[in-house]
């Protein structure tokens, strides 16, 4: 409401300069009131976002001593050392692999579950309840549950594998498996949120669209691919943006399940930031790493928004 009034005021100043002079103080007042309203959130943003960001930029040009105090100006050395180090490229590769393993699979699985359960059939509520359950678990709880499932000798998964006469898998200690295992756990953990969002997206589609599709003789597959998928594409788009950001920022499950190991095969980006800043207490290189991550996520998000044109809003 305020913004439309302000808009009107602006138009009036354009046309009637004389009266505009009298209007100006009230326009100024409007703006001030507007800023007053966003002041609390601006303040919080400044204290917890902008200030730390600027501080990171500052720290990224320095080395810090073991107490974390600024010790020596090194210019861009932190960044050049980063791009030259094998560990940096490894963690970038691991993060990309992790994103590729978790985002599409997670979205597909959740979409499938949502499409199967959005109808008004008997007992659907029970399924909806079960499928949305993972949203209630924190990363650490979920990690501990899967740590038990993945346990090399007393874990449930290996127990069933040996019952079936298969050789047990070293889920978290085999470099070939560790990232896959963490991805499985992450897909499961994120599925709750993705399922709820997709389900509500599906249920937001007007019933008469389905009715007319049915009258026109559209079968379930055709309905799914030609009606449901395009109509929930805004939701899928939103989820893909959020999930990619999430995947790039994952940390908890690696910290609890593998500590980045074995042999760096699950050392994602944020874990290496954590290691650099809070294990080695090198705030300088840690800040440089996190700025690189910031730039990458921003670029990725911009890239994704270019795809937004393909999304169908109705």
């Amino acid at each position, binding site marked *: 409401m305020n913004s439309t009034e302000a808009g009107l005021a602006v138009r009036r100043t354009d046309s009637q300069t004389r009266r505009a002079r009298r209007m100006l103080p009230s326009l100024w007042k409007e703006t001030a009131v507007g800023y007053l309203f966003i002041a609390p959130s601006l303040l919080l943003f400044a204290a917890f976002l902008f200030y730390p960001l600027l501080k990171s930029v500052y720290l990224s040009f320095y080395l810090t001593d073991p*107490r974390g105090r600024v010790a020596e100006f090194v210019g861009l050395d932190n960044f050049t050392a980063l791009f030259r180090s094998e560990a940096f490229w490894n963690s970038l590769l691991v993060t990309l692999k992790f994103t590729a393993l978790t985002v599409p699979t997670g979205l597909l699985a959740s979409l499938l579950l949502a499409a199967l359960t959005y109808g008004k059939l008997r007992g659907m509520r029970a399924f*909806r*309840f079960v499928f949305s359950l993972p949203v*209630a678990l924190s990363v650490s709880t979920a990690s501990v549950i899967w740590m038990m499932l993945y346990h*090399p*000798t007393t874990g449930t998964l290996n127990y069933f594998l040996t019952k079936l006469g298969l050789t047990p898998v*070293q889920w978290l200690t085999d470099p070939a498996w560790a990232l896959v295992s963490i991805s499985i756990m992450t897909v499961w953990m994120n599925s709750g949120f993705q399922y709820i969002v997709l389900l509500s997206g599906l*249920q937001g589609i007007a019933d008469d669209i389905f009715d007319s599709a049915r009258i026109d003789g559209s079968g379930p597959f055709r309905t799914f691919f030609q009606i449901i998928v395009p109509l929930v594409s805004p939701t899928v788009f939103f989820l893909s943006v959020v999930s990619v950001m999430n995947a790039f920022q994952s940390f908890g499950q690696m910290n609890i399940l593998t500590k980045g190991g*074995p042999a760096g095969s699950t050392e994602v980006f944020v874990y290496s930031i954590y*290691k650099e800043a809070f294990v080695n207490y090198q705030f300088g290189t840690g800040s440089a790493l996190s700025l690189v991550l910031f730039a990458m996520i921003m670029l990725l998000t911009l890239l994704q928004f270019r795809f937004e044109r393909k999304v169908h809003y109705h």
Partner: protein
Amino acid sequence: MKAWKQAGLPVAMAGLMVALAACGSTNAANGGNNANKPANTEAADTAQAGGDESAAANEQANAAANPQKEPVKVVWWHSMSGELGKAVTQLVADFNASHPDIQVEEVYQGTYDDSLNKMKASLDSKSGPSLIQVYEIGSKFMVDSKAITPVQDFIDSENYDVSNLEENILGYYTFDNKLYSMPFNTSNPILYYNKDMFKAAGLDPEKPPATYEEVKNAAKALTKDGKTGASFAIYGWFMEQFFANQGAEYDNNGNGRTDTATESLVNADAGVKTLTWWKDLVDSKVALNLGRKTDDTKKAFLAGQIGMTLDSTASLRGIVDGAKGKFEVGTAFLPKPEGAGDGGVVVGGASLWIMNNKPADEQKAAWEFIKYLAQPDTQAKWHINTGYFPITKKAYDEQIVKDNMAAYPQFKTAVDQLHATKLSPATQGAVMGVFPEARQIVEGAIEEAFGGQKDPKAALDDAAKAITEKIATYNKTVQ
């Protein structure tokens, strides 16, 4: 829209309920913890009510005599949880009861890493502790931080007698001939083996393997019927110990003890020999690779799935009790390659540091508490309740220690191994500021060798290079 409302609501409600239930349980757990604390202290109090009644009476008498004198408050940050935490609470309660002029407040600050990080953050404020327990590999940082008063200052000022303390333990915390901190909890790694499995495999259960070759042969014999010979956790600490056991140094400049270390020696012969042997055990399927956690190897050992494992002496009680009724546990010295030089084990565990940003009387009070903890009877209690070594030789004369040794004869191995250790820079242990990180790098290298990405020599070469770089950065920031 209607459908969404009808179906969505229960889903949302269900989600909410689960969330609430989760909150409820955390609250309950918290409440339980809070309830536990006083109960513990109470239990501790009643347990010693007999012995300490007089002390309590003393305290009252003293308090009545000089009512205006406030006791000096000492805040002690430690990282002992669970059973160990209970033992700490009891030690502090005993001390406070017998020292009316000093009030020690013990605060559990999470793991060693957490506690150290919190301390770093508190250095420029008043919120820090007067006394802090720091793990052995944080020692170099503590010295470099210049935020502490070496305990040697107190030892010198009152000619405190340290001749009864274990030289091998003091050695670790002595830099430039100065004792910087007082050891508190000390442990070593030992080889645990399943005597019943040894018998079943036709091996002599009283003659455990002592060399790398013998470990391999024993592991070969033990591997059958779905059981595996051994499993050693990929733990950097073990690699450090294997070095010391061969009398080899881990860093240059006398293990960083004659001068600041500038180079990692982890790719030396001792390391390559160890990793080649270890990888061979895993490749020939007579040892399992269960990852980095000793918790996992311990579980497998207790489940009878592996015949041998390496673990800290601090786990001895848990392992012997856990195996009760299932099999008999044997303990042996850490193995070494055939014909290796004189060596021994490096002490692990933690020590106590006095912070220098507190008033002199508070530091003095902290020193009083340290002296109390180093007394033979305190050490004896601490030792039998936890499995850590007593830091004073006199503790072995205490009756409770003798009784404990009879109940857990396996502990003798640990004590013998400590006493058989020849003190040298190699067994004093390496000193470097980037130790926590170096450990992670070495663990990564072992994993790379196991995974076949690199051969043992190449993996250790790269690790040494990475650690040397980290040391250089660290040294640049410390002057």
